[in-house]
């Protein structure tokens, strides 16, 4: 009779994806567990410390609030495919190209290039600091832009950071601005080449694009080439990071999604 009950429970067990479904499954599995324990021989339970019998999950309540960072992922099939695509793109194209580039170009020059592009993006940070009412941040970004564009020779050097360390860069973008206005992420989206995003952050990224000088370069092929070069240069400083984070993951797709969403949430709250 017990066996019959067990098998019924097992059949009910759904391959659930969403959180609520999973929770329901646990309820069923719980009962299954209790039943299973009842039929199981006493086994070697004597060797197992008491701690492992403890079923107290009170801590879940205090953390329930934090779960709200979950963002809808209705595009999951597309997103997973794009995540996979980007992964292959990284290992087959971006990484080998970047390794060659890093081998040929000295670090000092690569740092200069990074500074140059970073300086070009200053208008985005100034505008978004202003939009969020962060006057200090806007002023710091404006001053840094002014100093680095002149003394720093078109932004190739970053004298502002060494001479005025108190003027911290204020990494704001339109996605964060929209978030600070109370606009939700919408849905999670993975874009080919561009990477992880959400509907809100994508809108922000497009909006910020109008403040990016490279946006106005014609023909479009030239703009894309510059963008590609910028990506290779930036990647040359962080080869290995992607590999490491992926290596530390059991479910890479979920690991990256969670890290992206929580990190963005923190940035919005700042």
């Amino acid at each position, binding site marked *: 009779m017990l066996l019959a009950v067990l098998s019924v429970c097992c059949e009910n067990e759904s*391959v*659930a*994806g969403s*959180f609520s479904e*999973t*929770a329901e*499954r*646990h309820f069923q*599995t*719980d009962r299954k*567990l209790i039943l*299973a*324990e009842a039929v199981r021989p006493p*086994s*070697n*339970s004597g060797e*197992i*410390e008491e*701690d*492992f*019998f403890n*079923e107290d*999950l009170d*801590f*879940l309540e205090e*953390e329930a609030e*934090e779960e709200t960072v979950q963002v809808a992922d209705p595009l999951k099939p597309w997103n997973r495919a794009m995540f996979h695509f980007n992964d292959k793109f990284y290992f087959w194209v971006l990484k080998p190209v970047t390794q060659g580039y890093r081998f040929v170009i000295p670090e000092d020059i690569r740092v200069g290039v990074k500074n140059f592009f970073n300086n070009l993006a200053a208008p985005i940070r100034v505008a978004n600091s202003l939009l969020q009412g962060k006057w200090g941040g806007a002023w710091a970004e404006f001053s840094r832009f002014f100093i680095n564009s002149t003394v720093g020779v078109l932004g190739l050097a970053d004298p502002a950071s060494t001479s005025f360390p108190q003027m911290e860069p204020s990494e704001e973008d339109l996605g964060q601005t929209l978030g600070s206005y109370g606009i939700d992420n919408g849905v999670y989206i993975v*874009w080919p080449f*561009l*990477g*992880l*995003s959400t509907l809100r*952050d994508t809108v922000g*990224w497009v909006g910020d694009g109008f403040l990016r000088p490279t946006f106005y370069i014609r023909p479009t092929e030239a703009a894309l080439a510059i963008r590609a070069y910028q990506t290779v240069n*930036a990647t040359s*400083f*962080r080869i*290995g*990071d*992607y590999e*490491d*984070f992926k*290596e*530390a*993951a*059991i*479910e890479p*797709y*979920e*690991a990256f*999604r*969670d*890290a*992206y969403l*929580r*990190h*963005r*949430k*923190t*940035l919005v709250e700042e």
Partner: protein
Amino acid sequence: MDTFFKPVIVAMVMVWIGTASPASGKEPLDELKQPIDKVIEILRDPLYRDEAKKKLQREKIWDVIRTHFDFLEISKRSLARNWLVFTPKERKEFTEVFGDFLGEIYIDKLQGEFQDEKVVYVGQEMVSDSKALVKTTVIRKTAEIPMNYSMLKNNDGWKIYDVNIEGVSLVQNYRTQFNQTLSKESPAQLIERLRNKNQP
């Protein structure tokens, strides 16, 4: 858009600098500081510069670290409701294998990427009598990474049960992953997967 990786990873690496030895009625911050300093000392020690000594260095670091993490608490919180699906025997196995997994991954990176980082202790917040949040910042040449340790007091003193780097919590990140795995696989299969990762 992917610029968030770097700090997150660097910091996850640095997590393991943040850990080591004896306990008493001390403040959580002190109990965190001591092991961190100890691990940095081992990483800097020229004695281990030789490739052949890396394994010894690894064991030394692991000895310092392991007693300062509450792996049982980390496992419970990472599995959350799934903990109830595991039998006591599976819970014990999981706790051991997940602890080893975290250790393997991060000591690897500490040994590979340590660049004379400095750790600044920003302060501690008592959440309750037995819970505290210790805030630190890891200073690198090109970046400052905020890193917060959640600590829980047990009979041996304050133990780390979560690490939060720029808003990304170690426990919550693995919880999302384990939820996914356990929606299609059994606890035994998850344990097996972790074990396989440990022995490449």
